[in-house]
């Protein structure tokens, strides 16, 4: 598969006026929800799924990609100006960016974040362009036991990496797996865990779980501990510009952040927290003036922001090539593909080349749009923060209701919304990670299918699961991911994260 001609064909799709419009809509929505509290890219895409059933798949996915990238840009704005990361990947940006803003250098911080996001997003998309077809071709040799092992690796790494406790990470994962088995079994047509309700025969949709956990659970949680202070926005002095010194100090961190973010994002563990943290640590170590860190060092904004955006591009690699989501947003993107009867994986590049390359090309276009939208218009975006919180959260709940009631006008869906929403509240209160629930819900049925397929082919021999070098290696890596933190903790208590 030759990437360049395919990419050019993709641009022919992405540059169609209708798709440019959807990319713009996605970029605007993404930036807005990145800035607004209480709503993130995964929730936004989930709420839009029923609506986008009416538009062409490439247009919908181009818009969703704009939302994914836009949220990264928007998240940095709130981190810098009000010290509140809109997304988890912007946490490190807040450390230095807000200090810069307090010292009257908010404009430079916003500029290095936006340009760094553009550089990293573009390089990350180039990486995706050339890496994805290669991995997709490699994936053709994967048998069911290899896919099952790959999913076990994703389960293990997501549960270990996300959150503060492995046990709580795995509980979240298994809750997702438990929800995933509800419904009619695709292979034997037997109803499983439907509790006598025919409304559960089709299973529990990811939209219901995602909206309930992210919107309902979050609203109840914030309401129970609401801080009614108006956000204190650091004023922007002058225009959004960087001095020659800022450019000199920023370009290397942008490239290093990209080099850290993209490969880590592309790993089955994925996520933006680790690369941004790593980038911040690296920049602090390499800085000519490390004493500035903690007081507004521009390298501490440039590196993590680049890592954050590069990781977002990296997450698309396993999603598009292997059908493997490694974050909440990737999980709902996979659901969006499935809504259109498409299954990401190696066959997607063969059977739906126009769609997948149109999507990749739109990422380049979206990055340019986001730079234009974010640099000169940041003052406008910041005004979103002035929306009164009672009406913001009330609006989020009403739109959540649209997303859930609009699926099938089913009372059972409303009951699930309430129960899972309360579970979301409890998970926040007791610090359970939420993403593993979604990964378990969407990957669980796929893992079960591959497991059953592998065992059927081998006539029930469980050793088939370690019979190929790929499956044996992936399961070995899963085991290492599982036990490594404990071993590290035993060797050096300071090295390992607390569990």
């Amino acid at each position: 598969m030759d990437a360049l001609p395919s990419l050019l064909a993709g641009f022919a799709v992405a540059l169609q006026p209708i798709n440019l419009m959807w990319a713009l809509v996605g970029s605007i929505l993404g930036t807005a929800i990145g800035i607004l509290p209480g709503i993130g890219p995964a929730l936004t895409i989930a709420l839009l799924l029923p609506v986008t059933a009416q538009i062409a798949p490439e247009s919908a996915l181009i818009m969703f990609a704009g939302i994914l990238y836009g949220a990264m840009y928007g998240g940095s704005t709130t981190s810098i100006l009000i010290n509140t990361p809109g997304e988890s990947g912007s946490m490190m940006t807040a450390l230095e960016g807000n200090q810069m803003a307090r010292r009257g250098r908010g404009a430079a911080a916003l500029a290095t974040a936006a340009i760094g996001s553009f550089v990293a997003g573009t390089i990350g998309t180039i990486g995706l362009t050339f890496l994805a077809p290669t991995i997709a071709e490699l994936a053709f040799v994967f048998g069911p036991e290899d896919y099952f092992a790959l999913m076990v690796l994703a389960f293990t790494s997501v549960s270990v990496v996300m959150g503060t406790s492995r046990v709580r990470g795995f509980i979240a994962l298994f809750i997702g797996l438990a929800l995933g088995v509800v419904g009619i079994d695709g292979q034997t047509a037997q109803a499983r865990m439907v509790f006598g309700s025919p409304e559960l025969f089709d299973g529990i949709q990811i939209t219901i779980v995602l909206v309930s956990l992210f919107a309902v659970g979050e609203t109840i949680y914030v309401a129970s501990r609401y801080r009614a202070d108006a956000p204190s926005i650091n004023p922007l002095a002058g225009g959004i510009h960087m001095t020659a010194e800022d450019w000199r100090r920023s370009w290397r961190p942008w490239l290093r952040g990209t080099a850290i973010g993209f490969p880590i994002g592309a790993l089955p563990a994925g996520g933006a927290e680790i690369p941004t943290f790593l980038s911040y640590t690296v920049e602090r170590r390499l800085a000519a003036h490390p004493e500035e860190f903690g007081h507004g060092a521009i390298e501490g904004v440039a590196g993590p922001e680049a890592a954050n955006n590069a990781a977002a591009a990296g997450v698309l690699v396993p999603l598009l090539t292997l059908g493997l989501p490694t974050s909440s947003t990737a999980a709902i993107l996979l659901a969006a593909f499935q809504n259109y009867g498409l299954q990401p994986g190696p066959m997607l590049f063969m059977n739906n080349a126009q769609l997948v390359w149109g999507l990749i090309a739109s990422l380049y276009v979206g990055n340019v749009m986001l730079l234009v939208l974010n640099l000169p218009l940041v003052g406008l975006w910041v005004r979103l923060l002035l929306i009164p919180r009672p009406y913001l959260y009330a609006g989020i709940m009403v739109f959540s209701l649209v997303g859930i009631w609009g699926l099938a006008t089913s009372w059972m869906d409303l009951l699930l919304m309430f129960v899972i929403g309360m579970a979301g509240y409890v998970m926040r209160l007791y610090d359970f990670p939420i993403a593993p629930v979604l990964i378990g819900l969407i990957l669980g049925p796929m893992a079960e299918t591959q497991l059953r397929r592998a065992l059927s082919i081998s006539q029930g021999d469980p050793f088939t699961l370690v019979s190929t070098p790929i499956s044996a290696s992936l399961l070995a890596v899963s085991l290492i991911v599982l036990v490594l933190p404990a071993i590290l903790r035993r060797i050096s208590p300071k090295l390992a994260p607390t569990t």
Partner: protein
Amino acid sequence: MSSSSTRPWWLGLGVMAIGGVWLNGAFSLDVVANYGGIGPGLFVGLVGSGLVLLGLLLTIKIGHGERFEPQATEDMTPDAPFSRSGFLLATTAAAVPLATMQPVGFPVTAALVFTLVARAFGTRRIVQDLAFGLILGSACWYGFRSLGVDLGGFLPLVGW
């Protein structure tokens, strides 16, 4: 309410209970399929067993003094005092659609949910919030209907 100072045994027991329900469900399903492979019950049983085991591990950790820090998020501080009224109003807002959606339809339900959530966050203008909610709910009903999303009748109680 700071959960770190308490021992929430119910969390571990709850996880074990959910696992037990799934394990019980697995017993009513075939574990082995007729031809070589595994049946629909095996994965359900594995998930149930996993939850029971993890619930047990969590209970043991709680016994050893596991700390639970509430997650930090925007617009709140984890160590802020627990607002019973905020919690109850927001929870009621999530429950209200169960009772009202089918008889009174989406726009009225949206108005009630909007008002309850707004009040949970401190507003005290019920009539204005109800009006806002009704306008938003009606706009959503018409707007999404035109996009092909069915949100049921406008006011089923009177046959609309």
